[in-house]
């Protein structure tokens, strides 16, 4: 795919609003993402990451690290929303910076009802201390690819079991069992790596 790179004055209004993408390019990017290929998404969004940070720094007088974290949170959340079909071609630049602004506000504890909508998107690390996260990393690394794939498809990419089963040419019931076994295996490895276990 030809990734368009243009000075701001050479883009149409809709392209300016959508990180230089035409609607067809946006649809292609989305199709690639849904097929598990994020390369184009990463090129487009990471190349605009600094712009978003600068916007936060200029508009909210935030520090470099605050702007970085808020932009990163927004990037991860935006990606998820795209995969869920909640982001349409229109004004992605505005949506993305708005989302980053909301994360920044939330991080500055200025959270009021107007920012509550992003709570479901935030990573809630507080419940998981460092030891647990390290154990989880090790357990995940140890988990066979097939098991990881099932858990990732179902819990992270939110692909229905029926669809995962179809791609593997097995029944939904067999897929459910495979998912259960994968989760059991993950928990077993987790217990092996937890310091208190």
């Amino acid at each position, binding site marked *: 795919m030809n990734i368009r790179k243009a000075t701001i*004055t050479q883009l149409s209004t809709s392209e300016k609003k959508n990180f230089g993408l035409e609607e067809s390019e946006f649809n292609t990017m989305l199709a690639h993402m849904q097929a598990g290929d994020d390369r184009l998404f990463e090129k487009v969004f*990471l190349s605009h990451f*600094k712009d978003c940070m600068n916007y936060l720094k200029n508009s909210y007088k935030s520090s470099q690290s605050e702007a970085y*974290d808020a932009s990163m949170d927004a990037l991860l959340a935006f990606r998820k929303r795209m995969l869920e079909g909640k982001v349409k071609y229109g004004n992605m630049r505005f949506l993305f910076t708005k989302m980053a602004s909301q994360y920044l506000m939330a991080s500055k504890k200025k959270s009021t009802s107007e920012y509550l909508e992003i709570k479901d998107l935030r990573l809630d690390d507080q419940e998981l201390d460092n030891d647990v996260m390290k154990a989880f990393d090790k357990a995940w690394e140890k988990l066979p690819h097939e098991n990881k794939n099932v858990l990732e498809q179902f819990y992270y990419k939110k692909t229905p079991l029926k669809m995962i089963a179809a791609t593997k040419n097995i029944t939904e019931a067999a897929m459910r069992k495979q998912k259960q076994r994968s989760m059991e295996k993950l928990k077993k490895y987790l217990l092996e790596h937890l310091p208190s276990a």
Partner: protein
Amino acid sequence: MTTFKDFLSSNSEDPIMESYSEKIISNKLDRDRRKKYEQILKEEYNVSKEEQKAESFSLKKWMSIAASVIVLAGSFYFLNQPTKTSPKELAQAEIAELHIMADQSVMRKGAADFEEIRKQANHFYVNGDYQNALEQWQLLEADQKTNERDYLYKGICYLKLGDSTRALEVLEKIESAKGFELEWNWVIALAHLDTNSTDKAHIHLSKLISEGKYKVAEAKQLIEAI
């Protein structure tokens, strides 16, 4: 409230436990993705969380060095005038940074044959091969197919190749550059500075400042240096 212990001990698929599973797996995969993005941002875009910290450290370091230099200068008292970066040096530093604009070059529409030459020129230009880019644009110029944007990019190529006089000759042909007046003002200002024509550079930099949209901080810095 579901806890991590509940998660470990439960085998059920009730919605609460499923929601916790989703949360903990998403947390792990998001952390991995975050690390990957952090690495790309750092390596490919020179963006990091601690950039500002590094800058302030650098500033402190430079201040310490500057203080040491002043003390030494005082001791020997023959260095009684502070050194000042010349406008030409500042312009050359900015010319070195012009690749940002080049990286954002776009293929444009036109007659098929000329479009192919223009594509080649843009290709060389985007990849920093300014000599070859210029040769392609010369072909277009020979056929009188050069447009205003080509002249702008040609001007940048000459600047990159250190020929500010030729850059000015090209850039002065497009005084009414529609759609990229700001970029043109910036590039021609750098060319004037590089040829020590500070008065002319001042005019273009002032335009950028009055427009307030593009390279404003850089223009102010250069005007101060002038």
